[in-house]
């Protein structure tokens, strides 16, 4: 059974500064059991609002939400199950660990509220602490622990009632990069062990791709695409998704006589397969590490304009017509500045030419 279902969910706000905005526009999605599903998008895209509606902290303007088959928010019937009755687990960005209770009391809180007896509480808390590597710290207060440990307390507290669905709201943003990686792995392990369904909200695309089974990319209140991380990265459905999920270079091209020419070079064609519905002016999108860079002639022949060393790869700026292509390779692939080279685009995506209005609206939303 699908654990979280959203049907035609819409949320409108009236803000002081910007008037009426539709923060969430007709979201439809189903999260499968045991899945780790991410909401990904820039700030103002609607992901946090959607999470809060699922948690029960916001009501809906339209639509309905079901948890484990049971309706919890139904606008048409004005039915809202309060957060404390939704049986969820939740972890917040700023941990929200209660400073006046020690580790044990924090984790035991949800069980005590249920009225569980002392022995069972002790057992379950001990188990939760074991799974989050906090055994031995029961009597310590959060103020004396590091950020990573506090996050584990929040995690333990969320899993101790063994909820079916867990909501994680940017839980790793306040941790340093190394810790973020290990915590991500721990969360995955916990999920595998207990078969939680996880909804993970983040603005960090690499984090979302690393942790998710499926992801939703949203922008300005609309869902752009829902798919697996690989499909989203390799086959993004529009320019926004393409550039949001990783580095992109967009080449303006013209299609003439069955050949593709980059702007600024009317002679040498790019050796690309032209999709059937291509117009005369299109944009070809590509990624810096999906480009083959060789010294031969099998591809577009050009030269290296600039070479920049990054810590784990070398970046080359390569002119294609009047535009610049960015190529990244391991250090061992070495070209000097000015040297002749040849590029081949391995996975190009084709999009229609520019859309300015969308850019403006996106910028407007960032200020909210």
């Amino acid at each position, binding site marked *: 059974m699908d654990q979280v279902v959203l049907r035609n969910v819409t949320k409108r706000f009236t803000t002081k500064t910007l008037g009426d905005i539709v923060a969430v526009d007709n979201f439809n999605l189903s999260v499968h059991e045991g899945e780790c599903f991410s909401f990904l998008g820039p700030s103002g895209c609607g992901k946090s609002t959607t999470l809060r509606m699922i*948690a029960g*902290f916001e009501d809906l303007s339209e639509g309905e939400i079901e948890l484990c088959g049971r309706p919890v928010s139904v606008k048409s019937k004005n039915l809202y199950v*309060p*957060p*404390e*009755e*939704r049986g*969820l*687990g*939740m972890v*917040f*960005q*700023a941990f*929200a660990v*209660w*400073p*006046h209770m020690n580790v044990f009391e924090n984790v035991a*809180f*949800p069980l005590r*509220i*249920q009225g569980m007896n002392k022995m069972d509480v002790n057992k379950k808390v001990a188990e939760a602490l074991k799974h989050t590597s906090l055994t031995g710290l029961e009597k310590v207060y959060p*103020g004396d622990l590091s950020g990573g440990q506090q996050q584990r307390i*929040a995690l333990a*507290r969320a899993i101790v*009632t063994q909820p079916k669905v867990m909501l994680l709201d940017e839980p790793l943003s306040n941790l340093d990069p190394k810790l973020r990686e290990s915590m991500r792995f721990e969360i995955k392990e916990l999920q595998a062990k207990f078969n939680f369904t996880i909804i993970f909200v983040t603005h960090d695309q690499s984090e979302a791709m690393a942790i998710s089974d499926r992801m939703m990319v949203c922008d300005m209140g609309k869902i752009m695409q829902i798919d697996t991380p690989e499909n989203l990265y390799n086959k993004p459905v529009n320019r926004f998704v393409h550039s949001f999920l990783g580095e992109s270079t967009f080449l303006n091209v013209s299609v003439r006589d069955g050949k593709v020419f980059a702007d600024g070079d009317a002679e040498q064609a790019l050796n690309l397969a032209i999709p059937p519905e291509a117009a005369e002016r299109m944009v070809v999108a590509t990624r810096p590490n999906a480009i083959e860079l060789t010294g031969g002639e099998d591809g577009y022949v050009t030269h290296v304009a600039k070479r920049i060393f990054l810590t784990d790869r070398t970046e080359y700026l390569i002119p294609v017509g009047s535009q610049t292509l960015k190529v990244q390779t391991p250090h061992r692939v070495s070209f000097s500045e000015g040297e002749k080279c040849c590029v081949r685009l391995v996975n190009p995506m084709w999009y229609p030419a520019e859309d300015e209005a969308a850019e403006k609206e996106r910028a407007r939303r960032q200020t909210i």
Partner: protein
Amino acid sequence: MSIGFGKQKDLAALEGRHVSLDGALTILSFVLLLIIVVIPVFMIVYHAFFYQGHFNPELFKTQLLDPKNLGAMWNTVKIAFFVTVFGTIMGVFYAWLLGRSDIPAKGLMRALFSIPYMFPPFLGAMAWKLLLGGRAGYLNKWLWATFGFRMNINSVWGIVFVEISYYFPFVFMQVVSALERMDPTLEECARIAGARQMTVIRKITLPLVLPAISAGALLILITSLAHFGVPSILGFSQGIFTLPTRIFDAIQSAEGSFEGIRQGAALSIMLVVVVSLALIVQKHVLSSGSYDIIKGKSMRPTLIKLRASKLPLLVLSILTLLLIVVVPLVMIFLVALVNGYGNALIPANFTLNNYISVFKAAGTFDSIKNSLFASVVAGIVCMSLGTLIAYVVQKIRPRGKGLLEILSVLPYSIPGTVLAVGVILAWSGSLGVSLYNTIWIIIVAYLARYLSFSMKSSSAALLQVHSSLEEAARTCGASHTESLKDITLPLIRPAMVAGFFLIFLPAMREVTTSILLYGPFTRTLGVQIYAMQDAGSMSEAAALGSVAIVLIFICDTIVKYITKDRKGV
């Protein structure tokens, strides 16, 4: 930039001077604190236990066992206890209402709350005396005629009532700030975990604001223990004494003789002991320390919907506020305008004669002049001193900076009455300098009393002035002195101005300290009002009181305007 400690010493050494600027400032700080704080405190202890050079606890023992003094001690503690308890409850109630519920008229209520901060409690005591003081009180007359009973404000409970109405904002301010800025996810988390709204309040919100409540309660406790104005106006006529008023009584009755002042010293020790004990008890009963519950994100906490109880609560709150805040002030103006105390408060009886006679009276203009002079001088000197010491402690960091800090903050917990006694003992000739009966002895007492205020505000401002700002100036070619002048001073100037007013305003309206130190020509405004009402000239006391209210209000408004747009650090 981790290597900051001691670098100033490096710089001084680099400059190659023998006595650096920093060294001179440090020495000056120690000397000034010695004169202002250490000597008066020392004199109290000395004269309480020593007589003519020999250890003689007789006086202290007699004073301690005198039933009148024991009674005063008991009253002091009793009053302070009830004021703290009820004041805290009231403060928390209002903090909750304004910080967490959807009650309307929050702006109005907040404005009303700022009034008790502006006016000295003894004016309130005076007003309530006009209303409920014995048979002549206006409200009492109406109650007797309508319901057949009277209330007696000249009682312990009367004192408690008036003090609560002036001190509850201490708790309100602390708690409402904590409630408004608390991270809402702390409570949301509890709801997700299954707790209902009431449980969340009980188990999460309340414990987390406990430190704020405790801080406010402590402030009420100390202030009440040391307070002079209200117990003196409402208690003297009934023979009800607290330790501060008892000290005043002892010195007054002895007509300035040395014996009386020695008694005052002994009683001062008792008062300080009581205050210290109260502090210790409070520390154990209510945990101190604060939780890091304030978050940067500007999310508003969820407001609790009051629904049915909204209107009754609104009416109750506003009425209570009007009663305890507005009514007394209005009373003073009415009595000032009425042609004779006791006459009906109707426009037909209104006249300006009281004002005329007040300003004709000897000493009124002088008292206003004296207060202005003393407050301005104290403000400027305190501000400079406080800044000097804050700079030495924070930036120069010499050995013994801990001692400097303690000495400058110590007077904050010493009652104003006690400081006055100490200043009398120190500067009335026994050490070769006599300031007695001059305005200067009052100023010196003000310095001791208010130094900690400016020290704290200057400290906070200096903390904001990062060492990198001064270092940047040095690398641009400024010498150490120039960087102080060009960078540090301008950046803390707004705080210094605020610090000045932090002292000027309380000094203008205080009576606790100057009541013990005034001479025939050095009455302060507070003393003048107090003397008038003590002599029974209620109408004139009310008139001068109303002038004081207007004066204070104008000064406060000017200050708010000046310090509003400060673009400092």
